[in-house]
């Protein structure tokens, strides 16, 4: 069957199971848009191409399926760069399709020509230019395969306009991916495996560091079995949240710069760390010279380049987390470890104090209150999509996620402006889910144009703006490390509720504690999206905090005030 390259692209995407594409048209991709109109694919018109990539990313993270973003050449393609880098740093399977000027014009500085494969080379897992219609189907299938396999990541396919317009034979059976025959490395040898087993069964104070890789590999069941067999306490990375239920007594909470104090102390006291699908990012280790000095380390990780990159390990099991855990499980000895758990409980102190609900209302609205109420009102079952900064850390601390893929957040790149578009993508991936955006007043202003996308697509995404009138996390650093010189952090914002109304979205402004839960309840009951502007305490900080470059146990603790921390100093 002869089709144009543009039609071949649409048919290939349909065959690959794609239903939604997030994009923005333009000259060099117009043939594809013409074909899109005749296809079964649903196109979501974004308001900025950065939004398209974040939506595809949010779609991928909420579902595990490949998200697809589309843009034209030149500025359309360069606007995608931040979104692509965000997906790269967090191993998210995204395929970006960009139009390119005609192949005869390549290299001539034609109108809207940019070398997007050159630009995105270091921030994609792979990218490729296609200049012949007959190569489109195979290349796109390869792109999906690469994006999804191993450690996932973004792939960009740049298709010249003449390739979109030319005709070629399309036969799904014949256009199979032809990826280079790569060397297959044995993932680990028996000696390494036996050493890991020995370390696991001999440990007195073991601790698991649970990361994003558990969710990517779908290892939740094998992981839970592993944890319960060894009765291991579990610390979560930011992106690992959801991989193991927060309500399991063995889940200690988040580790790292804004991790729970008892978690960071437990890491420093452990005699064995078992890292699963995480990469010892500087935000979770603090100063590497003092990190977990008394602990042996086992690293279960699919990416060989991560082994010994930041932390030298004693046993490296390179492979898919689920496969490795399933191989380990039959060898695990049942343990109770009462002394170690008692020690952690002692460090944790009186956890009732953490229940901020029972604290008296001093008339202040704290972000933690808002997040805590959001957690309670949504029964901990919403998909929460956060931006980057203080609210992101409070979400991680106060919203207790029991299910995988229910926290969508930009961890590695820390991309402000991520939340709103990513939540739109998550809603398309999980239409039945209760999707909430938790975003600061700074990040929201970066991509708030996507409110129009919500309206145009008639989808329901509720938005909680944690509005403190500052670029809060930067302000916090200025408070701690720059003598409260608040340079460029006080932030003027529009009246967000009125802004929402201008877009045709219901807007609310909340300033008191008592109004938080009822408003969240009413937003959930509404058929349409609701934006709630929570005016919270302006100069609150996230505690505890490990200053950048400090040792993990050297945390700045919350001074005496209404929000008391639970952990006692060991």
């Amino acid at each position, binding site marked *: 069957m002869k089709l144009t390259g543009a039609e071949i692209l649409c048919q290939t995407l349909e065959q690959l199971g794609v239903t939604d594409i997030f994009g923005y048209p333009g000259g060099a991709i117009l043939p594809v848009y013409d074909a899109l109109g005749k296809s079964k694919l649903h196109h979501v018109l974004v308001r900025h191409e950065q939004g398209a990539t974040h939506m595809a990313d949010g779609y991928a993270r909420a579902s595990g399926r490949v998200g697809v973003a589309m843009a034209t050449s030149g500025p359309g393609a360069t606007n995608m760069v931040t979104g692509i880098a965000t997906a790269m740093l967090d191993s998210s399977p995204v395929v970006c399709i960009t139009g390119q000027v005609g192949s005869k014009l390549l290299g001539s500085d034609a109108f809207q020509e940019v070398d997007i494969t050159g630009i995105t080379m270091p921030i994609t897992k792979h990218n490729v230019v296609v200049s012949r219609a007959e190569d489109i189907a195979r290349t796109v299938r390869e792109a999906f395969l690469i994006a999804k396999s191993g450690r996932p990541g973004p792939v960009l396919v740049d298709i010249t306009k003449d390739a979109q317009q030319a005709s070629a034979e399309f036969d799904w059976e014949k256009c199979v991916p032809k990826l280079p025959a790569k060397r297959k490395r044995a993932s680990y040898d028996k000696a390494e495996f036996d050493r890991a087993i020995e370390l696991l069964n001999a440990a007195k104070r073991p601790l698991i560091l649970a990361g994003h890789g558990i969710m990517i590999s779908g290892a939740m069941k094998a992981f839970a079995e592993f944890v319960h067999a060894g009765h291991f306490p579990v610390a979560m990375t930011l992106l690992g949240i959801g991989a193991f239920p927060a309500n399991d007594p063995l889940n200690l909470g988040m580790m790292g710069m804004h991790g729970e104090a008892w978690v960071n102390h437990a890491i420093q006291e452990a005699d064995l760390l078992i890292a699963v699908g995480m990469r010892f990012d500087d935000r979770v280790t603090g100063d590497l010279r003092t990190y977990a000095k008394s602990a042996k380390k086992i690293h279960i990780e699919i990416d060989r380049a991560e*082994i010994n990159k930041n932390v030298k390990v004693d046993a490296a099991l390179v492979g898919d987390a689920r496969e490795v855990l399933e191989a380990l499980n039959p060898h695990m000895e049942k343990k109770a470890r009462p002394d170690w758990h008692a020690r952690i409980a002692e460090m944790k102190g009186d956890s009732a104090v953490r229940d901020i609900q029972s604290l008296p209302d001093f008339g202040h609205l704290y972000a933690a209150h808002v997040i805590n109420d959001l957690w309670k009102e949504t029964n901990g079952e919403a998909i929460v999509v956060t931006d980057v900064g203080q609210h992101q850390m409070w979400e991680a601390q106060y919203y207790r996620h029991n299910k995988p893929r229910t926290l969508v957040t930009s961890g590695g790149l820390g991309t402000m402006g991520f939340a709103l578009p990513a939540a739109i993508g998550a809603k398309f991936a999980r239409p039945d889910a209760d999707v909430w955006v938790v975003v600061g007043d700074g990040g929201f202003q970066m991509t708030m144009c996507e409110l129009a996308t919500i309206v145009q697509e008639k989808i329901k995404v509720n938005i909680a703006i944690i509005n403190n009138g500052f670029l809060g996390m930067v302000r916090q650093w200025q408070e701690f490390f720059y003598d409260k010189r608040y340079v460029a952090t006080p932030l003027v914002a529009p009246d967000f509720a009125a802004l929402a109304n201008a877009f045709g979205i219901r807007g609310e402004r909340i300033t008191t504690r008592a109004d938080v839960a009822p408003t969240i309840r009413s937003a959930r009951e509404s058929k349409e999206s609701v934006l709630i502007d929570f005016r919270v305490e302006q100069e609150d900080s996230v505690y505890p905090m490990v200053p950048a470059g400090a040792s993990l146990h050297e945390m700045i603790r919350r001074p005496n005030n209404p929000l008391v921390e639970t952990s006692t100093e060991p």
Partner: protein
Amino acid sequence: MQTLVAYVENKPGVLNRVSSLARRLAINIDSLTVGPTENEEIARMTIVAHTDAKGAHRLEASLEKLVDVLLAENISERSLLERDLALIKVAADQQSRPHLMDLLKVFRGRVVDVAPDSLIVEVSGTVDKIDGLLEVLRPYGVLEMARTGRIAMTRGGDLLQPPSEAAEPAATIKT
């Protein structure tokens, strides 16, 4: 200094991906050579990099993550043969020419071009040998030099061949 060998797809842009990766890892490349193999679709690279064993592991593992790199191996610790080829144009008049010829014998260099005022010397060998020859030629006046950079191969039965098995069948993978 660490020596890596890589087999890569012989197509446009691959050299850029490899060198861009080294740049991203802040690893300075001392020399990088690319040449064809007996399979025209595959090229072989020898990369000599200013880094330690840890950096070489990272470079090796990161290279293998590139779709177009079929295999990358750090061979620094293995028994290996290294060769560098140089063409050196050296000033030579009637008087100095016989002395130069004598020197070249010691270094097993060959004169491949003779002009009234200069010679072109071809010499191959280890980097040390070529550096040694350069040292002694310098007083005569080295006018121009071109070097290939190192190529390396492990000795004897220690084979490093491109993977030959076909790519995994992927036709059934869906989103």
